């Protein structure tokens, strides 16, 4: 397979108009899958809720299709159907796992679609992001500080991570917004600094290239920020995600593979220190290394998750036919395991293909945007937010690495996560429209 990303000639508007409406076709395919599953659930439990959820999805898909088709003359035809497929599949799973939560998620989907459309169709948004990057960063850090000071947990459970800000019955996870803000800031910063970065790197001996202050400075800054998040919020997932995405951005900007190795070493150091300092990290590492002796207690969740994969086999148990509810909090962190049990390995490969397609599409936008480095790095960072977060939670659920407690973008239950994932997609659509 030729995986080299090359810039293809711009397709003509005339031929695009003559081409079949790919977005509509893909949305119809996605809709068929989602409605078939909702119908299966409806027939099993005869609850009209499933049909209402389907209507909510259909409204979002139809509105998104109409707006994107008319407001953007040229746009990424694949991205919107992709995220609608993923979020619809997520709605199906949440409906099956926690029906009452599905109602809320359906409302969040409508809100998130609105946010996506606003983001994708606001002409000056990208310019604002670059111009007001410091303001945005300050806002993001204020959000972080406010979470540290005023954070709550919607479950009200003692000892649970306080990662949400509450407004009455409404909860929002600021770290979700912080992800996008930080990516925008870093893309803007690196798009200006990358020539200097590359010059600084090349002025040193190759073996000492990573010692350049222009490289090591930002790395240590982000590392510190990640550690702060880890310490104050015990949010291993967000800290890991920030640092990983930052390292990728810095690698692409500087062109030095040593950045990645250095980042890996710093991650190991932070992990070692965190393991010895924080019980939550120690627990996650311990049950990752050997969950079996404690399978009925502390490692119950991960062991049940692995059993769900085994129970699903190749073809899965079928929607509503498995027993994924043995996994605690399955609708959020472990929705991937529920998907594996009910749709089997075929479902897992399908999901990963969708995420791979999203990644490839996002990186293609990054390649096509190289004339404007900010756009290119922003597309890269936004794409990596989705890809790395997906890898973190899927790998954790499969015991490839310790659990980080992040959601599976578009699929897991969580309003903040869904909203920000749609905003990320909206920005990618905006970037796609700008470059083509």
């Amino acid at each position, binding site marked *: 397979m030729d*995986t*080299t*990303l*090359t*810039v293809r000639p711009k397709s003509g508007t005339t031929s695009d108009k003559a081409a079949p409406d790919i977005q509509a076709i893909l949305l119809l395919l996605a809709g068929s899958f989602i409605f078939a599953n909702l119908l299966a659930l409806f027939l099993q439990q005869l609850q009209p809720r499933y049909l209402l959820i389907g209507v909510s999805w259909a409204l979002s898909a139809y509105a998104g299709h109409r707006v994107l088709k008319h407001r953007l003359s040229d746009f990424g035809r694949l991205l919107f159907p992709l995220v609608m497929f993923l979020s619809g599949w997520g709605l199906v799973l949440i409906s099956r796992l926690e029906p009452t939560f599905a109602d809320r998620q359906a409302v969040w989907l409508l809100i998130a679609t609105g946010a996506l459309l606003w983001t994708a169709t606001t002409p000056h948004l990208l310019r604002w992001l670059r111009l007001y990057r410091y303001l945005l960063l300050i806002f993001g850090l204020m959000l972080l500080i406010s979470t540290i000071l005023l954070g709550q947990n919607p479950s009200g459970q003692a000892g649970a991570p306080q990662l949400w800000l509450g407004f009455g019955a409404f909860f929002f996870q600021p770290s979700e917004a912080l992800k996008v803000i930080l990516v925008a800031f870093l893309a803007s910063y690196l798009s200006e600094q*990358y020539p200097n970065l590359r010059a600084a790197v090349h002025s040193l001996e190759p073996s000492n290239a990573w010692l350049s202050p222009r490289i090591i400075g930002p790395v240590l800054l982000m590392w510190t920020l990640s550690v702060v998040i880890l310490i104050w919020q015990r949010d291993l997932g967000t800290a890991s995600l920030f640092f990983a995405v930052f390292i*990728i951005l810095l*690698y*692409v*900007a500087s*062109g030095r*593979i040593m950045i990645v190795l250095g980042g890996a070493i710093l991650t190991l150091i932070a992990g070692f220190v965190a393991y010895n300092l924080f019980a939550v990290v120690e627990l996650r590492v311990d049950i990752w290394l050997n969950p079996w002796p404690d*399978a*009925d207690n502390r490692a119950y969740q991960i*062991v*049940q998750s*692995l*059993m769900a*994969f*085994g*129970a*699903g*086999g*190749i*073809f899965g*148990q*079928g929607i509503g*036919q498995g*027993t994924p509810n*043995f996994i605690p909090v399955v609708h959020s962190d472990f929705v991937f395991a529920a998907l*594996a049990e009910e749709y*089997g*390995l075929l479902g*897992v*490969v399908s999901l*990963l293909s969708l*995420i*791979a397609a999203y*990644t*490839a599409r996002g*990186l293609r936008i*990054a*390649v096509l945007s*190289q004339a404007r*480095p900010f756009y*290119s*790095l922003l597309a*890269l960072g936004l794409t*990596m937010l989705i*890809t790395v977060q997906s*890898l973190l939670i*899927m*790998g954790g659920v*499969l*015991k*490839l690495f310790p659990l980080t407690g992040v959601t599976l973008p578009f699929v897991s239950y969580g309003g903040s996560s869904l909203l920000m994932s749609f905003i990320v997609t909206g920005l990618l659509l905006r970037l796609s429209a700008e470059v083509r």
Partner: protein
Amino acid sequence: MAFTRELTHVLLASLLALMGVIGAATYWAVIGSDNILEREDNPRLILNEAAIQRGSIYDRNGLPLVETVRTENGALERRTYYEAFYSALGYFSLRYGVDGPEAAFNTILRGERLTDKVGVRFERDILHQPQMGEAITLTLDQSIQQRLSDVMQDEQGAAVILSVPSGEVLALISQPTFNPNTLDSDWDTLIEADTDPFFNRALLGQYQPGGILQTPLAVAAVLTGQSFSEPNATATQTVTVDELMLSCAIPPPQDTLTLAQAYAYGCPQPFEQMIERLNDNTLLTLLGSLRLLEPPIIDGFGLVQNVDATAEATLDASVSLRDDLLGQGQLTVNPLGLATLVAAITNNGNAPQPYMLLSTRTPDGVWTDEQPSLSPIPMMTADAAVRLQDLMRANLNDGVANAAARPDLDNGGHAAVAFSGDSTQTWFIGFLRLDNEQAVVIALVLENTGDLNQASEMGMAALTAAAALDA
């Protein structure tokens, strides 16, 4: 372009990472799935088990004895229909497992044998259809079982009725027992009960034989050419085993008795003399050939009867062989073992091997006859068998088992008392011939009683019913 190379690397790394996730998912879903799913702490195991529609159990005439039915709340429930069969059929419980025929034929009842069929695998693995088990038809007969249960009433003990020459188990009872329909709720009480209701006395019980060992000793006497007609003036004298004084089971009309009369009145002294006359090795060889040291196992019941526990006993000839052969030593016997011995006596010396499975039926309704895997075991010569039949017939005239006499029937039997610590057991073994070839035999033991007439009457009453129905 500025970032093309790096972006290509990022794409490649992302795709590789995603493929790594697929690899891990493949491992847990396919390669390692059996290992993780078979863990005892997998809660899906119980749900899967609960979803299995176990096959029904029928009696030999097609009467349903146990069925899996769906309750109003949609759950599957195992129901045993006849109280008389409670001890014969064992139990199935999601919480406590299986026992008895439910355990012996568990693989069949769960439908495990069908997994070799491609169509069945497709239905289970791909379509996720519920696992359906095969139905089985047993050799047990509801009418005979009911009659045996009726005659046993609430007595504590066990009984087995076999068909000769086939070896089919027609009825089997062990008391006290349990109700398999309320097993889960009764479990704690049952497990604490002194009477050990879960212990299947007919299959696993090892009892003190007492005077019932005079039947195998009579076989030994025939095979070693002992005289059954020579008068013995000391035949009615008591015999002492430790502090136990053994005398004739019923008072004989005179003090001088032949060996045949001693057998009929249950007098131990002539048998003690015979034991002392015969070589120890000869006696041990004879006992071995009668399989008294190695109780039989119903075909397919290896795990249920726990082969280790019933493994061949060893007798120390130098210490206690006399006591053992007088029925008050270390040697213990099992109802099924004695029933098999009587079956050999009735069947020209060849012991049919007991079995219980007649046929199976797949979920789509195809019946298959099941052939027993064990062959009859020669125990004695045909002449010796005929001689023993005559001796046992004589027992019913005015001997120890005269309560079992049925003048219009060709039957025989032997009854005896055994002492075990402070308790007393009473044995009855007997046969009822249907024609030249066919017969039914019984071995019955009652705990905590020394009433020979009661045991004889009960044993022959059950046997008469069995004969009428089996004919």
